[in-house]
């Protein structure tokens, strides 16, 4: 029996395990499917990590290394090269590994930190031939940075997500020619700093409101056809541009990897594709917490760390101070509960529910907007009345937003909170 089993040894799992140790748990197991801790950070050899959390600029492996070092100072047990196959409703974890065999472990609490996967060609139904040479940006990144192999010479990138932008620069530095980055939306899906540092600095054109409408080539990609799209994202005939290339990289979105979560019967939010969570990252299954990209896709690892520390601390609190014996449910019968609604301009919020009684001082709230906005107000309303507002000069779908709601304010709210965006003239 473990106090806590953390599924996933990437940045989320590492931060959660460290925080749970600090919170007093002494029997913690991290299960990691890869041969080393650190998750996807290990292949992110560019810098720009840690500006918020460590107040300095680190590479991905360095950022992971800091946490692996911290973990080494605790007594947290780690099983590498071990894949979790099932999580049951009564918190049994089935896992299998080459050296560890097939094991079923019982946990008092669980942190889900499995991360996310990339959307593929099939998910967005790009028409055309099916030659080799179409890779997700993350798979290409693994080939280049971990395996030491270049997946092509002349490259078109579809999607302006951060991994795609990073790979535009990486492939260029390794000697490939990146012909274009193509984005179906009228704005980029990545961080502004990546547009500047990865495209502009290398004279790589960014075609907004464009998409790939055909892939040509028998055995290997030979050409990619790019067309402009209208306001409904339908290709406009006559706008085709043909690129002679051997590689198409896709950076068209990330999907939280929640197969274990679904299997365990945990409620999923169809907007985030992650578990529905409460203010301390607890899911609908008591004692099971979710954090990092498995809960919702983040832009910056620093925020993953903060969220996961919250989840780890909450797991410790659950085990040390939580209910004995039978679980009373995630929300006790006499407890106040607020549901967070997405108002105008907001695509999702995390958490989706808040139990004000369990908030100490501030309740952090993450959300994304559905369009680029200048000079805006984030409005928080409850029962039709505005209870808070926050000013922002710039909001974009590619950049996760964050507000902190004071406990006193939550106490004023009734039943629900609605977050909405209102553009205001200066």
């Amino acid at each position: 029996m473990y106090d806590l089993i953390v599924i996933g040894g990437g940045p989320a799992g590492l931060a959660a395990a460290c925080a749970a140790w600090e919170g007093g748990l002494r029997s913690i197991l991290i299960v990691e499917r890869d041969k080393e801790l650190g998750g996807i950070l290990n292949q992110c050899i560019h810098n720009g990590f840690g500006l918020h959390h460590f107040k300095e600029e680190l590479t991905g492996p360095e950022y992971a290394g800091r946490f692996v070092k911290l973990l080494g100072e605790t007594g947290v047990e780690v099983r590498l090269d071990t894949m979790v196959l099932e999580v049951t409703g009564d918190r049994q974890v089935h896992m299998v590994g080459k050296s560890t065999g097939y094991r079923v472990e019982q946990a008092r609490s669980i942190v889900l930190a499995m991360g996310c996967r990339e959307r593929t060609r099939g998910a967005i139904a790009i028409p055309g031939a099916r030659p080799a040479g179409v890779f997700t940006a993350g798979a290409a990144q693994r080939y280049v940075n971990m395996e030491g192999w270049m997946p092509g010479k002349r490259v078109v990138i579809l999607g302006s997500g951060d991994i795609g932008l990073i790979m535009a620069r990486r492939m260029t530095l390794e000697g490939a020619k990146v012909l274009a980055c193509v984005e179906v939306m009228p704005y980029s899906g990545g961080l502004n700093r990546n547009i500047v540092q990865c495209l502009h600095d290398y004279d790589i054109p960014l075609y907004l409101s464009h998409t790939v409408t055909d892939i040509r080539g028998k055995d290997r990609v030979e050409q990619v056809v790019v067309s402009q799209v209208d306001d409904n994202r339908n290709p406009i005939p006559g706008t085709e541009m043909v690129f002679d290339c051997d590689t198409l990289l896709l950076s068209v979105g990330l999907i939280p990897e929640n197969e274990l979560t679904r299997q365990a019967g945990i409620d999923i939010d169809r907007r985030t594709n992650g578990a529905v969570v409460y203010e301390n990252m607890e899911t609908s299954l008591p004692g099971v917490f979710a954090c990092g990209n498995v809960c919702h896709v983040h832009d910056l690892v620093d925020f993953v760390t903060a969220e996961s520390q919250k989840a780890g601390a909450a797991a410790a609190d659950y085990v040390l101070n939580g209910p004995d014996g039978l679980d009373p449910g995630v929300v006790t019968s006499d407890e106040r509960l607020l549901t967070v609604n997405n108002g105008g301009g907001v695509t999702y919020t995390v958490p989706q529910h808040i139990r004000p009684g369990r908030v100490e001082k501030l309740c952090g709230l993450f959300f994304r907007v559905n369009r680029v906005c200048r000079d805006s107000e984030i409005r928080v309303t409850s029962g039709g009345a505005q209870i808070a507002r926050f000013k922002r000069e710039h909001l974009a779908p590619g950049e996760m937003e964050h507000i902190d709601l004071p406990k006193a304010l939550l106490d004023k709210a009734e039943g629900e909170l609605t977050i909405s965006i209102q553009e205001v003239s200066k």
Partner: protein
Amino acid sequence: MYDVLIIGCGITGAATAFELSKYRLKVGVLERENDVALGTTKANSAILHAGYDPEPGTLMARLNVRGVELAQELCAKLDVPYRGCGSLVLAFSEEERPTLEELYRRGMENGVPGLALLTGDEARALEPNLSETVAAALYAPSAAICSPWEYCLALAETAVNNGVELRLNTAVTGLEQTSEGWTVRTSRGEFQARFVVNAAGVDAALVHDMAAPHAFDIKPSRGQYYLLDKSEGDRVGRVIFQCPSKVGKGVLVAPTVHGNLIVGPDAAPSEAHDTATTGDGLRFVRETAQRSVPSVNFRESIRNFAGVRANTAAGDFILEQSAPRFMDLAGICSPGLSAAPAIGEYAAELLEQAGLALEKKDGFVCERRRIRFKELTAEERAALVEKEPAFGRVICRCETVTEGEILEALHSPIPPCSVDGVKRRVNAGMGRCQGGFCGPRVVDILARELKLSPGDIVQDQAGSWLLDRQTKGGNRDV
């Protein structure tokens, strides 16, 4: 000198090789590609049709019904994923009812068991997600689904286990009649054979023309598909057809044996090897399928693909001796997969009639098993990993495929040499991430086991290279 050389190792060539491997014969199969099942066999609806479509009295009708009857036992013996799920043909209006009645009549005549005409409500009771506009349906309980490439692979592997020689990467370039039979010229030298069987799929007319006067044209017809995630796999429990038209059986919605949902195909004339999808074709498939099952969620798409049907103007399979000791197995469009083992039997009969002595051999083994880690119980998994640790390393996390299964495939009678070859044998890369995660790991295993550089590993057919060159400098082991 071969007794029989079969040209092409799709489902038809494999089924014929399997059938002939029961006899005391020296049989060879020449396959142009680096693996079996790379043509129409790997890209179709994966349906074993009940047999009410073909015109009574045709070869298609007879071999379809016989083929699906054989398939059930064969799939069980050869460990091929198979599910007898049944099918429904939908009518959306009173005007379409006569079509159902005609199919019912044909089915009865063809000997299809258990056919029943249902009302719209009865059909919806079986399949709650059917459209409210469904007015009537033809129910055929004997229709089934299978894994077409594993079916082909299982037949070919069993043939090889029973002495058949499979020559991959061997393209036939010419045929010349000799006093004893044929000289077959290929990209890898010449072979002598007493009999030649043409199972060249969409290229069957080209091969025919090497041996006999031009007699038929293959009119390739491309069909495009959606494959949806397992989250949509239970949308229907049976194969859902619409009323067939001149160009094909129309757009279907069906479960797959792998737990996904398949939707398609359209039908459009194409080049023989043009398996590209188009925006218009995919849109047509989406919109047409939603007439049958409006709730199909195409946001759960994990892959699109297209296959090419080897249609001819004949309206029936072309199974005949068209030159001395030269047999055509051509025009194998739908229901070719369903009929395959019966086509194999028929080909053996044709050869016998042409003078080939068929003498059963002792020790024919009709058996095949592979370990499917995902389908094992917790206890079985524990015991397996204890014995063979490679089964403890999960390579494909979407489909829970282990390194042990890949290593087993690499030691099978027809080992894979490509990433997709591994996929067709063990399902690695078939899931929702489409190999994004396991692709590099499969390349790694292939390179290690085949003692090749990762740069030599291809995605699928020869020429489908994956990696260009190593990055500049550095050493990963430093």
